[in-house]
């Protein structure tokens, strides 16, 4: 008996240590990365960095074009993705008939979430830039990124809607509410915090995307901010990517500053998502 007990406790301990080692591994790498970025990035990061355009000289290079480009592209992408994504999820979960076709559509949307982002870049180049003649514009970039994150947004919104208990829907129907009332007044308000959380996380993924935008032909060296949605543009990750590929070593510091800024932006968005989830889960 005692032997068996010892053995069980030992197994418990061994697994605990194994898990601890793996999580530490991840955390150490992450900490090292953040330390590297912060320590290098802080050197060149000043107010001027935000207000200057790119330059051939590291000391004069700034992120203004990328920052504004990112804000434009993401700003346009947010409404497009939110409305298409949420509406699709609502249809699939609340309205679509339960049959094979619906199942196939749901399965394929989930699969789309796993497609490499560069494929979306090629799609954007083919459809938006060339076929629809949008050129390498902010609009084309936004639509490309929308396509990229829509599957994620739809799936997470579906999950959020599914988690609303049927008892609430029944309560609403039993009071004589119609389908739309039930969805709009009962289901959506309950699901909205989760929908928003998933949505914000998807947006932060889009902000960091480089490949699809390079693929569809976003510029790398830009000396202006976009004036409208049909203007050409660059985004922060592309600028960072460009700096890291330049021969002058000082550009490494500039790239680090850009990364730091991008990191802060993502941190804020993730914080916002956590805050929303926390705030509503306590109610």
């Amino acid at each position, binding site marked *: 008996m005692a032997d068996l007990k010892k053995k069980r406790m030992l197994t418990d301990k061994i697994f605990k240590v194994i898990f601890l080692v793996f999580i530490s591994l991840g955390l150490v790498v992450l900490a090292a990365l953040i330390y590297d970025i912060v320590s290098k990035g802080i050197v060149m990061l000043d107010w001027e960095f935000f207000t200057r355009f790119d330059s051939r000289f590291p000391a004069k290079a700034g992120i203004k074009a990328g920052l504004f480009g990112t804000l434009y592209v993401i700003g346009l992408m947010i409404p497009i993705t939110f409305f298409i994504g949420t509406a699709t999820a609502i249809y699939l979960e609340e309205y679509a008939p*339960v049959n094979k076709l619906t199942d196939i559509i749901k399965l394929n949307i989930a699969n789309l979430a796993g497609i490499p982002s560069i494929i979306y870049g090629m799609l954007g180049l083919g459809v938006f830039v060339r076929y629809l003649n949008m050129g390498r514009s902010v609009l084309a970039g936004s639509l490309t990124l929308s396509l990229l994150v829509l599957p994620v947004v739809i799936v997470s919104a579906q999950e959020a809607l599914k988690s609303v*208990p049927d*008892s*609430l829907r*029944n*309560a*609403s*129907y*039993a*009071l*004589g*509410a*119609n389908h739309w*009332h039930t969805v709009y*007044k*009962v289901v959506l*308000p*309950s699901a909205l915090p989760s929908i928003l959380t998933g949505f914000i996380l998807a947006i932060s993924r889009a902000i960091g995307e480089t490949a699809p935008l390079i693929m569809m032909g976003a510029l790398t060296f830009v000396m202006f901010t976009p004036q409208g949605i049909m203007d050409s543009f660059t985004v922060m990750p592309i600028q960072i990517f460009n700096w890291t590929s330049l021969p002058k070593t000082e550009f490494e510091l500039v790239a680090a500053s850009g990364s730091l800024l991008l990191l802060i932006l993502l941190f804020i968005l993730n914080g916002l998502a956590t805050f929303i989830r926390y705030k509503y889960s306590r*109610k």
Partner: protein
Amino acid sequence: MSNQKVLEVKNIDFFYDDFQALENITMDVEKNKVTALIGPSGCGKSTFLRTINRMNDLIEGAKLEGDILFDGESIYQENVDVVNLRKRIGMVFQQPNPFPKSVFENVAYGPKIHGVTDKAKLEEIVVESLKGAALYDEVKDRLNKSALSLSGGQQQRLCIARALAVKPEVLLMDEPASALDPVATAKIEDLIEELKNNYSIVIVTHSMQQAARVSDMTGFFLMGELVEYDKTDKIFENPSDQRTEDYITGRFG
């Protein structure tokens, strides 16, 4: 006038796909009476309750044959407005299911979707409904607090108030006290006694004592059939069917 029929159920058969859940049910529900439906789990009593306000419409593959008359008119004709039907026949569920909104908004939900927008009028309905559900005194200071902060028994009475707010004529209750403790259950039972002055009540319960305490009429369901339907006293003291007697005396179920 004492035996006015509010519901006339005529030979209904009910199917979930191929499974027949109800077989040839016929019964009348009298106005301003409490009608209890008892029977073992899975006997179809809840399914039957849900045919009365057509909640089963929401279930894929559900099919009903036969007819139910409400106030003398069929509720299963094509032109029946289900929204209006459910407004006139309210329902309270087994688990308290308040919306994750304030107490006030919960009760105001029904009137609002049926077009009441005037604030003073809404407030009047909310207060009146909460009083009707014997809950007003307990929640009058926290109408704007979340309904989920109420106790289970209070939540269930809130659900009753919410149902009353659309001014139904019939109230369907699906084991309304089964998730509650004895004190809260007693309150619900007192409330039912009170409510029957203004409403006709059909209550599903798995507690025979509860049926005996609150109801005027009792129907005994077994495997999708209505075995016996009579005055509650008769059912509990001198049932005609052997199966009813076996169930009442606890020999099965």
